[in-house]
């Protein structure tokens, strides 16, 4: 008796490929029609500006004293010590804190975000989110974060 031929579409690999291909059509429609579809150009531009709009503590202190300073760390860190005049704005309490920031912001002054240091990316995340929610506004990220500020303040 001849062994039954294995039909090619029985192969798990083919099925897997079909499963991987199936989402492409609805994904295409989503990218085309969804009211909240991702905008690559915007994402790209924002990525560029977040990586470019960074300044050092020295420059921040001398030229951006009038900016709205935002602390992206945890509430505990903020309350322990923060840059005088800075407002807390972190992702944990975003909904509660953003209105307070908006109250203080005059609509035109640049914003300057800092967080815990070199390896902390919370300030970038906050900057990105601010640009996303408020449109094309000037948001700077402080290189070196809070430790850089502390070091600067310690020197006369």
């Amino acid at each position, binding site marked *: 008796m001849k062994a039954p031929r294995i039909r090619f579409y*029985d192969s*798990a*690999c083919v*099925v*897997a490929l*079909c*499963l*991987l291909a*199936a*989402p*492409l059509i*609805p*994904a*295409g429609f*989503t*990218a085309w029609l*969804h009211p*909240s*579809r*991702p*905008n*690559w150009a915007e*994402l*790209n531009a*924002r*990525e560029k500006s977040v990586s470019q709009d960074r300044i050092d503590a020295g420059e921040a202190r001398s030229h951006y004293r009038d900016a709205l300073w935002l602390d992206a760390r945890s509430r505990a860190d903020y309350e322990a010590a923060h840059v005088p005049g800075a407002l807390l704005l972190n*992702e*944990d309490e*975003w909904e509660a804190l953003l209105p307070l920031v908006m109250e203080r912001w005059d609509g035109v002054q640049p914003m300057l975000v800092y967080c815990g240091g070199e*390896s*902390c*990316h*919370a300030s970038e*995340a906050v900057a*990105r*989110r601010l640009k*996303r929610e408020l449109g094309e506004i000037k948001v700077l990220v402080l290189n070196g974060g809070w430790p850089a500020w502390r070091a600067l303040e310690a020197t006369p």
Partner: protein
Amino acid sequence: MTRDGKAKSWLRRAALAVPTVLFAYAGAGKLTDPAAFAESISNYQLVPPLAAALLAVYLPWLELVLAFGLWPGRTHRAAKALSLLLLVGFTLALVVTAARGIDVRCGCFGGGAGQGPTAAWAALRNIVLIVFLRFGRNV
């Protein structure tokens, strides 16, 4: 089937239902705001913005397809393998990101950056899901 066999079968199906529901819920959740999900992916700093945008529209649908694909006999094996791969991939991304010191909220169920459990909890949950997936059967 013996009574014991029936109970085991029921258990296995219940086990399969867990990742099914979670995948479907996760996929649907991300579809409510793909732009926010793209933002979340960006925060991981693992892929360039274009890839983030493409993944943001593709991944949710993949999750939905896999959730349903786990049940029909013909697609069960492939869907299971792909789901495992996906979960392993997600977990790796979380681990790598946490190791790099980037503070990301998971974004696992949609929502913008800052939503969802921390990387550690999400990774743990993924591992639990992987276990359910291995144990689960559709018969």
